């Protein structure tokens, strides 16, 4: 898995580098106009190229995580530069809300206790105070 991920990532970067020759600017920018995203995040205009690479990175990772490639493109396009930079390289670690949990007896016991204490809220049958 890691092997493939590494190579896919490399391919993403190469593709991104090629595309840089076509267009180095975000679609929101117009010649002669300093854009709103840039003005609101002063440090970002200088990081445009980084954002561009990060965007390609995120696009590739979404596809690798099972999103249809065409949808992965559309989904990436809807992200702002700062969101893209927050996601790049971190998709595996950021919270993904989906109720996923490992099922093991000790997990059950620990969470049962913390639920009873009102610290967590995993089991609907535990009546909180």
């Amino acid at each position, binding site marked *: 898995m890691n092997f493939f991920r590494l190579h896919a990532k490399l391919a993403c970067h190469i593709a991104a580098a090629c595309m840089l020759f076509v267009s180095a600017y975000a679609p929101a920018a117009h010649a*002669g106009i*300093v854009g709103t995203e840039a003005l609101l995040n002063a440090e970002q205009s200088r990081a445009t190229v980084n954002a561009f690479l990060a965007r390609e990175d995120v696009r590739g990772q979404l596809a690798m995580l099972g999103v249809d490639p065409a949808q992965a493109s559309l989904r990436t396009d*809807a*992200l702002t530069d700062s969101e893209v930079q927050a996601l790049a390289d971190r998709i595996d670690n950021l919270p993904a809300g989906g109720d996923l949990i490992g099922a093991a007896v000790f*997990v059950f016991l620990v969470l049962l206790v913390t639920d009873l204490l*009102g610290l967590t809220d995993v089991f609907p049958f535990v009546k909180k105070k």
Partner: protein
Amino acid sequence: MPIRPAHSSEKHVQLLAAATLSLPLIVLQGCSSLQHRQLASGMSGLPPVYELEATPFYPQEIHHCGPAALATVLETAGRKTDVDELTRLVYLPGREGSLAVEMAAAVRRLGYLPYPVPPELVALFDEIAHGHPVVVLQNLGLSWLPRWHYAVAIGYDLARDEITLRSGTHRSVLTNIATFERTWRRGDYWALLVLPPGEMPARADAARYLQAAAGLERSNREAARRSYQAAVERWPENLMAWMALGNGAYAGGDRDTAAAAYRRALSIDDAYAPAYNNLAQTLADRKQWSEAEAMSRRALEIGGAYIEDYQATLDGILRNKPPD
């Protein structure tokens, strides 16, 4: 912290040891500085009890709490969707869940404004009291044993110390406010309000609002522009609101509105170089060469972070303007 707990028994022993050692710590941490204590004092100015009973309910399928929560708030904001459509926009099969930034991006793709509610219970409840259900990210488990979950906060009762959620497969979940606060804090207090473009949150902050509206430019320029229009009406003395409106109008080809907005920005701050530059470009597009050149030179004189852009604007004007 990995989302998926390891499955080897060795890991379990380690985790069990960690659990035993850290339980007192967790309990101590749980007691510290929760916001709900301040709420209980009755100084918040909130109605003591409020519930948005009419909020629709989309029971989630397994791992699809993100799309279900989004469908709930989008319908309240006026956009009927179905969970399958939203699943295509946010669900990440490899993570068996949905990422918070993609939740906001999906809202933008549908032409609505995703406004991040500040990390405060009082702000969350105030939105509810103004008719806005809010999507919240909870970690229902523990920081080292997370169970990430999206729910929709639709009501609260300060006297009974309860919050009401549309959550998972339950239409109405009553949770103790302190318990909710702990699960929400573990989700980094992430909370998302979905608004039709042009509408304001109950507690609108100019910078927060403009940042959210700027994100809309990529997906839906018209919705961004309507949001900027609402921003200048709400904060008529806000420089960035006028800049954003100007840029939004310029992007839509409306040079008159753009020029007027940049001039208004300059009336608020006559040393703001980006406004001179963007006005210069707008005037140049309208072939008002002499004023364009003057504005462009003014931007260059002031200088700053975008000085290369200002130079490019002036070069373009000098290249294109007809000889005197």
